[in-house]
């Protein structure tokens, strides 16, 4: 015998429970400081030359935060767009294809960004 709360805490019968909802909150929390850092870094880079920009990206502190920003942004984006597709796209087949496309595009864009950062760091 388990209470309803106990079952929910055990992540329910599908073993997923509120994971999707929770991860949207976790990534949003991570994005709060990262977004402020990114916007104010971009202000500092306004009008910067190619060499200055590449040098800025290649600094370990900036590269690590950029990679964290990329991971959180595209995870949050895939999660959020999936909810929008689930609410508005009908019928089910179209919705499923939309969600798959959202995930594929998000992962590919994230990897493109990450590879770019790693390449800049390696070249520096």
């Amino acid at each position: 015998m388990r209470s309803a709360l106990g079952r929910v805490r055990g992540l329910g019968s599908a073993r997923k429970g509120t994971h999707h909802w929770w991860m949207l909150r976790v990534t949003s929390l991570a994005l709060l400081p990262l977004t402020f850092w990114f916007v104010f870094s971009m202000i500092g880079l306004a009008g910067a030359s190619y060499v200055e920009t590449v040098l800025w990206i290649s600094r370990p502190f900036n590269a690590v935060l950029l990679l964290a920003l990329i991971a959180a942004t595209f995870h949050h984006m895939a999660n959020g767009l999936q909810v929008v597709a689930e609410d508005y796209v009908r019928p089910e087949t179209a919705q499923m294809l939309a969600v798959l496309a959202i995930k594929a595009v998000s992962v590919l864009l994230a990897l493109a960004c990450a590879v770019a950062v790693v390449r800049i760091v390696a070249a520096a």
Partner: protein
Amino acid sequence: MTTQHDAREALMTGRRSDGTPVRRPLSPHLQVYDMMQMNSALSITHRITGAIWSAGTLLLVWWLVAAATGEESFARVQWFLGSFLGLLVLFGLTAVTWYHTLAGLRHLLWDWGFGFELPTMYATGRAVLIGTAVLTVLTWILALIFWG
């Protein structure tokens, strides 16, 4: 009854007390929400700004990939971002970013269990709008100072 093409439509069908079938609307249904009320307008704006920001990530991809490719590719991004259209897009994205960030913070406070009283809800809603305007203008004043 009409044929159902979507399994979830089963959730939408019910019966009235006299036994006749009825097709109930599912949320979000725009007939019920009044977009002149602040909270429903802010709610859909949160979604719209999230979608716009998603499209805006393409600029981040372009910027990073160009920086990794070389000076020539990077010059093209810089040219676009410095053009009238580029600056307009960046300004719009700044506003969208601050709106989604502040409205998202409001949602996190609700998730935490705070701010559900109606007067608080209107106050935080106004704070999101004013905060978006202030942060957007502040961001661009600072950007223009650094740029100049």
